[in-house]
């Protein structure tokens, strides 16, 4: 396992120490997992081991919880996360086609990260931007009123930006 950043671990340990003193401390497990993902982008196993100790929760239980909730990534993710909204409005307006184009273009299935670690493709429940359906969200930016072509263009923008930052 790669070494986790120490300062982030310190922040996390402080958070765990804080909640472990509260009433029903074990109920803060999901909060700890959220904090972990916020810090690391995913939930590393080492953290689950530590959380087990801090909150006195069996690791199997933590694993059960971490795998139950789709919000949590259990593997490191790409530099950009593409969430394709599969809410009803987007679905009705062609979200599946957007998703198909992305799968084809990126060469990955939903939930996976591209080989160059640039993109992780995800499906999302309604992103709340139904007025401009179909939409995708890349990191925290929303792109709306998409069609296949526009989608590919957006992806290429990110690729270009990444290529340029490599040059620099």
């Amino acid at each position, binding site marked *: 396992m790669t070494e986790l950043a120490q300062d982030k671990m310190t922040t996390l340990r402080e958070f765990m120490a804080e909640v472990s003193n509260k009433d029903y401390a074990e109920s803060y497990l999901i909060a700890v997992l959220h904090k972990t993902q916020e810090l690391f982008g995913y939930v590393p196993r080492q953290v689950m081991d530590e959380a087990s100790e801090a909150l006195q929760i069996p690791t199997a239980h933590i694993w059960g919880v971490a795998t139950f909730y789709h919000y949590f990534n259990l593997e490191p993710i790409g530099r950009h996360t593409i969430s394709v909204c599969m809410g009803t409005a987007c679905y009705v307006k062609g979200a599946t086609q957007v998703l198909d184009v992305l799968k084809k273009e990126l060469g990955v299935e939903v939930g996976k990260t591209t080989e160059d670690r640039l993109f992780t493709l995800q499906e999302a429940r309604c*992103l*709340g*931007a*139904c*007025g*401009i359906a179909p*939409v995708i969200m890349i990191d925290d930016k*929303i792109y*709306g009123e998409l069609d296949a072509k526009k989608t590919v263009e957006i992806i290429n923008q990110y690729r270009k930006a990444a290529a340029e930052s490599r040059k620099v």
Partner: protein
Amino acid sequence: MLTPLQAIKKKRAEAVNRIVSKGYLSTKRVYVGMATCEIAAGSKEVMDVFRQAIANGLTDVYLSQKGCAGRCNLEPTVEVVEEGKIPVKYGRVTPQRARDIVERHLKKGEIIAEWVI
């Protein structure tokens, strides 16, 4: 010791005072929709335009954010309220439109009819 109702009325009076002291009684009040859907549609950039305009010397305007009124397909929305006049509600406001609203509506009092909801 105040009773709860007395206490809340006092709080309300204080709240109103604070709002007024922030320029609520200005001639024009501008509200920019800032819910997730509005932000997704670009309302943050719109808000920035108005903020910038005030920073650049636009006066007599009270700027505030508001939640979503429910007009999803017309977002971002901006309202301009003038006392005694019918509130004007603009839809699909882009930063460019926002700049125009500043120039034409806020500065010159012209209602830009084609963008009104």
